[in-house]
């Protein structure tokens, strides 16, 4: 299984029946393809609806219906549209159970940076700051190392933060890490990596869970 596929499938296991879930652009979006069978999850789209469905067949697009990445989308029966103030009232008000976001950096204090690299790239935060502060559970889903091999899971983020102390879990192709008041706890490890491999790829010191397991996905 390729690394991105593993991440996406492992994130999907964190979803519970009835959850309202917001998926960030890019890798997190793919989680929608792996909702466990028999489970109903409602996807929230920050641009103003719940009940985000699959990509429409070509020729059946509605020009007014896109996801948060601007791609054509559908709405499932039982969904609802609303304005941006309501969309973010839902997010900020704790009505979204889980948000899954990508990151440039995450750290052992639960900080997260994903919206700018000063002097290089300033796309803006979009809805990421509200989602990270507001969602009940914040999962960072990303490849463990940056392009070039530098660690992204740090003692302290170096880039401008998206939010402070809001991350609950970090899921990569190497590891499942829980953010606790005592730092980062390694809960699961991918079969092809050793503890040493994971720690070497991580700047922050990882505590090993007494229940450490191999990552398993369907």
């Amino acid at each position, binding site marked *: 299984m390729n690394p991105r596929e593993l991440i996406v499938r492992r994130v999907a296991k964190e979803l519970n029946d009835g959850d309202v879930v917001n998926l960030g652009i890019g890798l997190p979006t793919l989680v929608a393809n792996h909702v466990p069978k028999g489970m109903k999850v409602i996807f929230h*789209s*920050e*641009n*103003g*609806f719940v009940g985000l469905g699959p990509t429409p067949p070509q020729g059946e*697009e*509605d*020009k*007014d*219906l*896109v996801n*948060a*990445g*601007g*791609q*054509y*989308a559908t*709405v499932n029966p039982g969904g609802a*549209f*609303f*304005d*941006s*103030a309501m*969309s*973010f*009232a839902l*997010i*900020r008000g704790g009505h979204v159970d889980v948000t899954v976001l990508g990151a440039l950096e995450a750290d052992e204090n639960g*900080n997260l940076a994903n919206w700018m690299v000063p002097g290089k*790239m*300033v*796309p*803006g*935060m*979009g*809805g*990421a*700051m*509200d989602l990270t*502060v*507001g969602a009940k559970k914040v999962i960072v889903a990303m490849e463990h190392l940056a392009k070039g091999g530098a660690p992204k899971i740090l003692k302290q983020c170096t880039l*401008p*933060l*998206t*939010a*402070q*102390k809001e991350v609950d879990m970090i899921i990569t192709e190497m590891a499942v890490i829980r953010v606790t008041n005592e730092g980062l706890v390694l809960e699961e490890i991918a079969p092809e990596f050793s503890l040493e491999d994971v720690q070497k790829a991580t700047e922050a010191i990882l505590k090993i869970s007494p229940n450490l397991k191999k990552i398993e996905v369907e």
Partner: protein
Amino acid sequence: MSKLTDINSIINRINNGAVLMIGGFLGVGTPENIIDALVAKGVKNLTIITNDTSFPGRGISKLVAAKQIKKLIVSHIGTNPETGRQMNAGEIEVELVPQGTLAERIRAGGSGLGGILTPTGVGTIVEEGKKILEIDGKKYLLELPLKADVAFLKAYMADEEGNLVYHASARNFNPIMAMAADYVVAEVEHFHTAGNIPPDEVMTTGILVNSVIFEDSKDAMKGGA
């Protein structure tokens, strides 16, 4: 007296330096015909309050490309590289605002609120220069209202009274911008006589809307993704 208006008489009202709110999210729910007319008129030094600068060739990005903007108040510019280029070159001022905060600031402007307290941005550079209040042991940023001279909306349908109905995710920022500008214009795909929209189904009351521009849906489709 119908609020249906000619697009030119609207564009004539817009002068250099105007502060505009423009609806839309990545170009969906943006009044493309009005944008085209603003580009044609060539007004300059605009301040634009909007969610993003869309994709190249579409929506707000046309105003960016034509260098008509002095200042942008937005949550995201990543989908239009030209905006970033102009920002880095110092040609355009960009105030980045978290999307939920942007929505609340616009709503506050239209609702007569002096501001709102949000947890979003606490502990980030967004808090710079802002008052921080602690309520029940939790920190919040005081974010101030936004208002505009003119709001340009995109709706699916209007009636003579200016009542609006939006479709799907094209609703986004349009309903709150309708509250926050001195003059409000909606570009619509369908137009009805008064009373044809049941009062339970109106999404923006006509008392907020000054003028309606009717463009047939083929033209509006040109703006599709």
